[in-house]
């Protein structure tokens, strides 16, 4: 299934991309995506998995993804 991954702030800087189109198996979760990112970007290893948003709503990292979902990792926010 097709899923869009959005990256922000420090995670975007480390990975080097703001957006990535992914081909995933059914039942994939954001937690699996994070582990994959960490395996390719060692600097992420010392950080807990950030907050997750699916289709612009906060969601659990173990939420199963569906075709067309937009997943985002939300590092610690600092707005306001």
């Amino acid at each position, binding site marked *: 299934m097709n899923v869009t991954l959005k990256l922000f*702030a420090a995670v975007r800087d480390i990975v080097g991309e703001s957006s990535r189109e992914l081909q995933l198996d059914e039942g994939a979760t954001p937690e699996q995506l994070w582990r994959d990112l960490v395996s390719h970007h060692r600097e992420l290893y*010392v950080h807990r998995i950030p907050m997750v948003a699916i289709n612009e709503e906060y969601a659990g990292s173990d939420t199963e993804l569906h075709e067309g979902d937009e997943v985002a990792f939300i590092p610690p926010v600092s707005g306001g």
Partner: protein
Amino acid sequence: MPMAYLTDDIIDIRNLAAGVVRPSDGAVVTFAGVVRDHHQDKAVESIEYHAYRPMAEKEIDKVVRSVAAEHPNVRTGVIHRLGMLKVGETSIAIVCASSHRADAFEACRKIIDGVKETAPIWKKEFGPDGTEWVGWQSDRTDPVPDIDQKE
């Protein structure tokens, strides 16, 4: 249709207030979040704000609606600026208007607290000691053995 809460332009607080205040309002509380020249012990020269824009609009709207439900007599306006800001510039402006001040003060505080907690907005600080995404370094957990090991 909710108002747009994000802008790339300099914030005009008076304009924001003009859109909120009614003749029945006896109290107008205004909050401005301003870029300051330090963060803990580090000097700051400028800050760049980034956002997951569509989600930030939604999350700010949720905060505004939640506060409106708790304070139905208060009207509010919120604008958060994105992009590069220098010390002294306003990053967020909130206007709360009500017949009486207790409600307006309370609503304003709840809005800034809520936005700071939930909006997917990030600031990158620039200063003489370097550049840092606020909140990222302090989010580290265990050291990575081969990166952090000293000789």
